[in-house]
C-alpha cells in the first residue's frame, strides 16, 4: 500500500526511540521512591538478617535460631502472639461487621458523620489511646469505681495488666483497619442486587446471607488480614496494657535488646516474624478473593 518513493515503514525508528524515552522518564519518576525503600527498608532488613546469624562469640552461627526451637519460653511467646492476634481479629470481626453494615445502610450524610466517629480515634495517637484505656481499666479506674458504686460488683475486677486489657486495647486500635475496607466493599455492593433478591422471593434474612454477605467477603477478608498481620507485630498496647504478662514477639525483641543487649537474638526473632507474616500474606493472597489489598486486584 505504501508508495514506492517513501521508505517501507515511515518513522519507525523515531517512534521506537520515542517509546523507549518515555519508559526511561517513567522509571526516573519512580526512582526516588525506589531509593527510599531501598535505604529505609531493604538495607536494614538485610542487616538484621545478617545479624541474626552472628552468635554471642561474634562468629557465624545458628545459635539464635536454635535457641528459639529449644527454649520453651520462645514457644510460649509465639503461642501468645498468635492467640492475641486471632482473638483480636475475631472480636474485631464480631464488632466491626455489624458496625460496617450499619454504616453502609445509612444515607450518605449520616454515614459520613458516623464515619468520623470511627476515624477520629484512628487519627489520635496510639500511645494516648492506650494510656487512656489504662486510666479507665485499672483497679481504681473509672470502670471499677463506677461498677462498685453502682453495686454491680464488690471487688475491683482485673481488667488490665492481663489478656483482657490487652484485647480491649488492641480491638479498639484495630477496629478501623477492619471497618474501613469492609465498609468500602459493602458500599460497592449494588443495591439492585438486594432488590433483585427480594423481588425473586428472598426474605430479608435470605437476601442478606445469600447475596449481601458473600459479596462483602472480599472486604471482610482484606480487613481481617490487615488486622491480623498488624497484630502479629504489635508492641505498644501489649506492653502497656499487658503489664508484662502478655509477651508478644515484638515485646521479646525489645527485651532482647534493652535487657540482654543481644542483637543477634532480637534479629532472629524479627526475621522469623517477618517470614511468618510474608508466608501468611502469600497464602492468603492465593486462597482468598482479596479486594485489591495486595495492590494488583483482579
Amino acid at each position, binding site marked *: 500500500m505504501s508508495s514506492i518513493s517513501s521508505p517501507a515503514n515511515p518513522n519507525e525508528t523515531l517512534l521506537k526511540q520515542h517509546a523507549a524515552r518515555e519508559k526511561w522518564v517513567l522509571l526516573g519518576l519512580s526512582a526516588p521512591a525506589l531509593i527510599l525503600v531501598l535505604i529505609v527498608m531493604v538495607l536494614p532488613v538485610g542487616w538484621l538478617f545478617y545479624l541474626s546469624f552472628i552468635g554471642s562469640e561474634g562468629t557465624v552461627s545458628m545459635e539464635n535460631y536454635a535457641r528459639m526451637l529449644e527454649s520453651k519460653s520462645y514457644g510460649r511467646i509465639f503461642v501468645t502472639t498468635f492467640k492475641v492476634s486471632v482473638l483480636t481479629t475475631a472480636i474485631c470481626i464480631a464488632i466491626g461487621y455489624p458496625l460496617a453494615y450499619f454504616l453502609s445502610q445509612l444515607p450518605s450524610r449520616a454515614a459520613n458523620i458516623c464515619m468520623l466517629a470511627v476515624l477520629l480515634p484512628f487519627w489520635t495517637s496510639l500511645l494516648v489511646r492506650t494510656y487512656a484505656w489504662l486510666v479507665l481499666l485499672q483497679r481504681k479506674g473509672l470502670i471499677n469505681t463506677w461498677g462498685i458504686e453502682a453495686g454491680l460488683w464488690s471487688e475491683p475486677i482485673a481488667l488490665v495488666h492481663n489478656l483482657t486489657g490487652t484485647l480491649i486495647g488492641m480491638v479498639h486500635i484495630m477496629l478501623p483497619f477492619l471497618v474501613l475496607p469492609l465498609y468500602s466493599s459493602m458500599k460497592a455492593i449494588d443495591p439492585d442486587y438486594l432488590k433483585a*433478591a*427480594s*423481588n425473586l422471593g*428472598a426474605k430479608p434474612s435470605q437476601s442478606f446471607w*445469600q447475596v449481601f454477605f458473600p459479596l462483602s467477603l472480599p472486604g471482610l477478608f482484606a480487613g481481617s488480614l490487615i488486622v491480623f498481620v498488624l497484630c502479629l507485630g504489635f508492641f505498644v498496647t501489649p506492653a502497656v496494657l499487658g503489664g508484662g504478662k502478655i509477651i508478644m514477639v515484638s515485646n521479646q525483641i525489645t527485651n532482647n535488646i534493652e535487657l540482654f543487649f543481644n542483637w543477634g537474638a532480637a534479629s532472629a526473632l524479627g526475621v522469623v516474624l517477618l517470614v511468618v507474616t510474608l508466608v501468611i500474606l502469600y497464602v492468603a493472597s492465593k486462597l482468598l478473593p482479596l479486594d485489591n489489598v495486595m495492590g494488583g486486584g483482579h
Partner: protein
Amino acid sequence: MSQTGALPISISQVTKRYGDVYALDNVDLEVKRGEFLTLLGPSGSGKTTLLMALAGFTRPDHGSIRFGDNEIILTPPHKRDVGMVFQSYALFPHMDVAANVGFPLKLRKVGKPEIAERVNEALETVQLAGYGERRINQLSGGQKQRVALARAIVFSPRILLMDEPLSALDKKLREHMQIELRHLHEKLGMTTVYVTHDQREALTMSDRIAVINHGRLMQLDTPRAIYDRPANRFVADFIGESTFLELDTKNGQLSFGGNVIKAPGWSGDTGKPALILRPERLVITSRTAGKAMNLFTATVRELVYQGDTSLMYAGLADGTEVTVRAGTRTGAAIENISIGDDITLGLHPDDTVVIDEAGEELAS
C-alpha cells in the same frame, strides 16, 4: 412454562410525593390480563417510580394496587411474586448463570432435579442453552440481558416488570431484542409492564402505551392511536416530531391565515385549537394537485440530506418554521428544490390532527 393465570393490574389513585414534587399524582391505570403495556415518559416523569411501586420497592403515600383481586400495596416485595428485569440486570456476580436463574426456584424450595430442568428450559427460551456454567463477568451485555430475563420468568410469575432493560445495548442489538421480547411475550402471555423513555421502543413493542409526565397519565392508548391522535400537546411533542400551529375558530370552522382547515377528527369543542404538523405527513405538492388537502405556502430555508430521508426546513407565511421529511428515491420532489424556493405544502385531511391546547391532561 405456559401461562395459565396472567393477572390484570389495577392501579388507582396512587400518589407518591418527594418533598413538594409529585412523582406520582393520583395515577389511575388498568393493565389488562396478558397485555404488554409500556410506561413512556421523559426522565423524572414518574414512570420508574410507578414500576417500583408495582414491584414493592417504593411505598406510595396513598392509593391502591391490585394484582387480580388482591390488594398488594402492603405486600413486601418478596411476597409479590412478580418477575422483574432491572436496568442494571442485577445479576449476582458471585453465582454462575445457572445459579442466578435457579435462585428464585431455590427460594421456593423446588427440588434440585426440577430446578436444573426449569433453568435449562428458561435458558433455552432466551436462546442461551448451554451457558449455565458461565460466570456473569464472562457474558456480553446482550447475554446478561437474556440471563436477567430468564431469571425473571423461570418461576412463572404472572406479572413481568421491566425497567429500561435494553438501554445498555447498542442500537442494532436493541432493535433485535425488541422484536425478541415481543415474541417472548406472545409465547409466555404474562402481563407485562415495561418502562422506557425511548418512544420508538414503546411504539415497536407495546399493546398499549401509557404516556406519563410530572407523575400524571397524559394518554393511554395503542401505539398507532398515540401517534396519530395525540390527546394533548405534551404527547404530540414527546412522541415523534411536531410543529404546532395555533388555529382560529369562526362559526365552528377552523382556519389558519384565513384559509379554512379541514379536520374531520376535530370534535368542535371550544378552547385553544392547535394543528399538529408531523414532518413525514406533510407533502410537497402544488395548488392544483393538492386540491383535496389543506395547503400551506412556505419558503425553503434549509435542506439536509440524511441518506434514507431528506429534511427540509421551511418558513410559513406567519414565520413558523415547519419540518418536512421526504424519502430520497430518484425523482422525488424534494430532490428538485433549492433553498429560497417558494413551495406549496399539503396535509391530507385524515392526517390533520387538532388538539385543544387549553386542556393539558387526559380527559378520561
